[in-house]
């Protein structure tokens, strides 16, 4: 038996099929993950993401600490509520985790992955030595992601008191309303909110949303949605052995000369030596499904170079398969993937594949 979120009973009430996910008993789907996927792309769906770890950071050195801890620079967060996506790297430049950090009225709030919770917290505690700052995990907070073009309207309908706050939110901004926090963020490539809610109030919020027509969606749809949106999944697309520069996370690294973050010197050395791999999107318009760990074969000057699919799936929006892959930097335009002992030609594209319900890659 794994950990259960405050919404576990609500999932059973909605007919969820429960699976283990990083030690948590979570819904994989409520009948059909493809239907749930389409709900989010065409209307609105909701996900229990309470298993994610919320950590608050306070203290006079909070900013200085995060500027050392994180590859992106929290100094970019000029106003309260602004959010930043970043990697947390080890000294070798490998990715310990990816996370979102919000600037709060006092201090910062971090949302990290559930499967990495223990090592993240241990690393963060280790690195905080010498800083006047302290970490406070918030397990009593649940989180519901409401995603899709009607997401903001539905949450505003259910939480009428917060409607004007929700309307004021910019993309990638989160604001508190008492113990609640409304964040215009997500993992689907659609507009939407991630709502942090005290666990005692989570089930009522979920049921109210369901009554308002918001479809419960499981981790299965969450994965196909994020992959269509070209978003990395920690543990699949990158981990401690993978450089963020080879996982399409270069844009999340702030290089300014006057800031030294953990892993920076390793990344600088990698750049000087030249990278061997890059992350690309793959598209297979013919039959078949690209899946994680399938071998990618790139023909280059008479040699066959190898790469690997890091995440692959059937794309319900497109009707064919897409993948993220780590391939030799020489790869251009097309390559082959080994699917069940057959070499299948695929197209190399720049992710994302889908945004706001529409195909976006070329």
């Amino acid at each position, binding site marked *: 038996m794994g950990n259960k979120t405050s919404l576990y009973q609500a999932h059973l009430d909605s007919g969820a099929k429960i699976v283990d996910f990083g030690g948590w008993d979570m819904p994989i789907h409520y009948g059909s*993950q*493809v239907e749930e996927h389409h709900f989010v792309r065409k209307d609105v769906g909701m996900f229990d993401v309470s298993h994610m770890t919320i950590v608050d950071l306070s203290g006079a050195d909070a900013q200085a600490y995060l500027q050392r801890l994180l590859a992106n620079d929290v100094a970019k967060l000029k106003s309260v509520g602004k959010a930043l996506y970043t990697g947390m790297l080890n000294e070798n430049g490998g990715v310990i985790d990816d996370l979102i950090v919000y600037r709060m009225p006092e201090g910062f709030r971090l949302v990290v992955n559930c499967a990495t919770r223990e090592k993240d917290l241990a690393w963060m505690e280790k690195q905080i030595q010498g800083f006047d700052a302290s970490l406070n995990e918030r397990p009593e907070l649940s989180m519901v992601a409401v995603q899709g073009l009607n997401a903001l309207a539905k949450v505003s309908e259910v939480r009428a008191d917060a409607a004007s706050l929700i309307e004021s939110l910019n993309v990638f901004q989160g604001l508190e309303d008492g113990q609640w926090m409304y964040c215009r963020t997500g993992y689907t490539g659609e507009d939407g909110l991630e709502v942090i809610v005290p666990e005692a109030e989570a089930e009522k919020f979920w049921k109210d949303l369901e009554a308002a027509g918001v479809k419960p969606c499981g981790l*299965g749809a969450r994965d196909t949605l994020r992959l269509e949106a070209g978003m990395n999944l920690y543990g699949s697309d990158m981990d401690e052995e993978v450089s963020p520069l080879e996982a399409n996370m270069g844009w999340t690294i702030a290089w300014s000369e006057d800031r030294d973050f953990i892993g920076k010197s390793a990344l600088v050395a990698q750049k000087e030596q030249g990278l061997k791999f890059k992350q690309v999107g793959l598209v297979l318009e013919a039959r*078949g*499904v690209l*899946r994680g760990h399938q071998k990618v074969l790139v023909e280059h000057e008479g040699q066959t170079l190898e790469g690997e699919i890091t995440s692959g799936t*059937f794309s319900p929006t497109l009707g064919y398969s897409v993948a993220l892959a780590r391939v030799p930097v020489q790869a251009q335009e097309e390559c082959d993937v080994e699917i*069940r002992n057959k070499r299948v030609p695929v197209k190399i594209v720049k992710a994302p594949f889908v945004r706001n319900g529409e195909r976006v890659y070329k």
Partner: protein
Amino acid sequence: MSNIPSELKYLSSHEWVRVEADGETAVIGITDHAQELLGDVVFVELPELGTELASGDEAGVVESVKAASDIFAPVSGEVIAINESLEDAPETVNSEPYDEGWFFKVKLSDSSELEALLDADAYADVCEADDH
């Protein structure tokens, strides 16, 4: 609990067989339990018409969003029909695994092979073992 019709025969790899009234045509598909395990089916690869299958041969592939799975021939015989509607509507395998979601038909070359297949009770035991 998944649906396991008592009149069908089964393989432990989750294929079912129904013998038609003529006594020599066997219809093959995958079980309700199999489609539940696979989740949403997105592609089905079927054998070609006229193929001579021996029991135990790989006869096709079913791919869901989650996984790919081989389909084995439960009995020997020539493939005399394939369910082409699965090309456009693979989700039928999820909604009607025993009816419109059938995969292919063979002309039985040795009907005694049917004796070696699982009956519904024995297959139910296989499913139960899977769930634990």
